[in-house]
């Protein structure tokens, strides 16, 4: 079970994503933004950070990196892809997921432990959770407000493609409280909060996030 973790200039959470993969029993393989090569991995994580400084728009420059062309192609063939925070923004910019992420409604960067409700436990990344379960993971972002036009929102809700919703006080002004969504085939998932920072109660608020990486290992082993 080999999981690629991409590093762009300005990526920060690649070490955390790789650690989470290892904790779940997988092998983390680093992928470099400038390479046209996924090194034969079974799945890809686009980690958090500030790729290219988040200048212009979060994810707008990273989307054009050579490695992203490969990711888009692989995703279209069904490879599981997870975008966390900046990775979610990049997946939206690359049109692997619909919508966009905008500046938090209160305009400040927010770092806090955030409760999420699992709305869809059938994606490649969420089968270890019960539907409706609530998990506590860090949220840390300045541009985490999920926005999409009404038709897209209706489609996401109608098809059950909202994966996570914020519980409690709204942290960033996301439409419908959306924290994470999935592609039509349930293979590509993007979310703003950070499951990779919640894999061990020593360094995170909980180990609730580990379920995402265990789910992936399950799904690839099954396939």
């Amino acid at each position, binding site marked *: 079970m080999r999981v690629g973790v991409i590093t762009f200039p300005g990526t920060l959470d690649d070490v955390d994503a790789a650690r989470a993969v290892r904790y779940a029993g997988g092998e983390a393989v680093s992928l470099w933004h400038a390479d046209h090569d996924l090194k034969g991995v079974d799945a890809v994580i686009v980690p958090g950070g500030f790729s290219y400084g988040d200048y*212009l728009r979060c994810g*707008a420059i990273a989307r*054009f990196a050579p490695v992203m062309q490969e990711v888009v192609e692989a995703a279209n063939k069904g490879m599981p892809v997870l975008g966390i925070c900046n990775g979610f923004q990049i997946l*939206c*910019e690359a049109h692997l997921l619909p919508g966009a992420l*905008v500046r*938090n409604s*209160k305009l400040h960067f927010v770092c806090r432990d955030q409760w999420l409700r699992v709305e869809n436990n059938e994606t490649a990344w969420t089968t270890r959770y019960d539907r409706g379960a609530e998990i506590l993971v860090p949220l840390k972002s300045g541009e985490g407000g999920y926005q999409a036009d009404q038709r897209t929102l209706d489609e996401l809700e109608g098809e059950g493609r909202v994966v996570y919703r914020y519980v409690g006080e709204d942290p960033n*002004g996301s439409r419908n409280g959306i924290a994470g969504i999935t592609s039509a085939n349930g293979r590509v998932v993007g979310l703003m909060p950070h499951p990779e920072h919640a894999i061990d109660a020593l360094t995170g608020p909980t180990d609730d996030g580990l379920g995402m990486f265990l789910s992936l290992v399950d799904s690839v082993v099954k396939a």
Partner: protein
Amino acid sequence: MARVVVDVMPKPEILDPQGQAVANALPRLGFDGITTVRQGKHFELEVADDVDDATLAKIAETFLANPVIEDWVVRRVEA
């Protein structure tokens, strides 16, 4: 060399927290009569003379703006 300006604005139906924050702050600072504020980005580019309008349009649409949430205007200005 030509100078090109691209203005990128959040679409009217998209929430614009920054513009709203400015609009809310103005009365507190004693400035009345400003009913709406929207905040976007302003780019100034120096471009070679052989860069045509179609290319500029493409740069704006595929890169400078995100059409999902933003509108944009490209114009050439006197240098």
